[in-house]
């Protein structure tokens, strides 16, 4: 899916680098943030098409970022994929209830992550088109 901009939020620099190589090889433009506060700022300024979000972050956590996103109607439509080293128990349900499109525990399978990104972007685009058509009616 060309020209799509993904924001990778993770405090681990090596993981950001590795993800960016993989995502760029698949045609995505990649933005970065390494803490909860700059993540929110980048989302507000750049309006990425999708966010890959770690939960354990300096300056808050991934749940704080999702909560801030959902306070704003246009930002709440940006799909979020949680990618975390935290345990599944408790965190997966909490993340999905907070509005995440998907939850992955590290280490993730590249193929599964990429197909989930494509699905989330497709769903987001379809919702956007539906929204436009309902407005025109």
């Amino acid at each position: 899916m060309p020209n799509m901009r993904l924001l990778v939020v993770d405090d681990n620099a090596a993981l950001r680098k590795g993800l960016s190589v993989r995502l760029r090889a698949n045609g995505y433009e990649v933005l970065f943030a390494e803490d909860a506060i700059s993540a929110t700022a980048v989302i507000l300024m750049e309006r990425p098409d999708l966010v890959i979000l770690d939960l354990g972050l300096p300056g808050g956590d991934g749940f704080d970022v999702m909560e801030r996103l959902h306070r704003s109607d246009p930002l709440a439509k940006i799909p979020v994929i949680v990618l975390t080293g935290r345990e599944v128990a408790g965190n997966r349900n909490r993340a999905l209830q907070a509005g995440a499109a998907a939850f992955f525990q590290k280490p993730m399978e590249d193929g599964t992550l990429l197909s989930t990104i494509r699905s989330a972007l497709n769903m987001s685009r379809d919702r956007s088109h539906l929204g436009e058509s309902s407005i025109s009616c």
Partner: protein
Amino acid sequence: MKELSPQPAQENQEQLTAHLAKKSHELRNALACIRQFGNILADGLAGELSDEQREYVAIMLEKASTIRRVLDSSLDGSAGLLEVATNKIDRPSKVGMAHA
């Protein structure tokens, strides 16, 4: 007879669970990087590899998968088992202890 709260034992269990969760988190982040860059090399995203280099990277990725399986089945599992085990124990609300 002096009554003692079971709180220290519960605190120890909570500390151990938190410690295991922290170690699991650290290992999972490190393992994610190893697999990420291993796959980048294997897929030729950082340049073509020789047959020998490809073989070595494949071994590295295979061993990373072994570590992941161990992590999934033991470290994370032990934290869960610890919770199950402590939940199954009917601890008295207070423990009495005689002092000389």
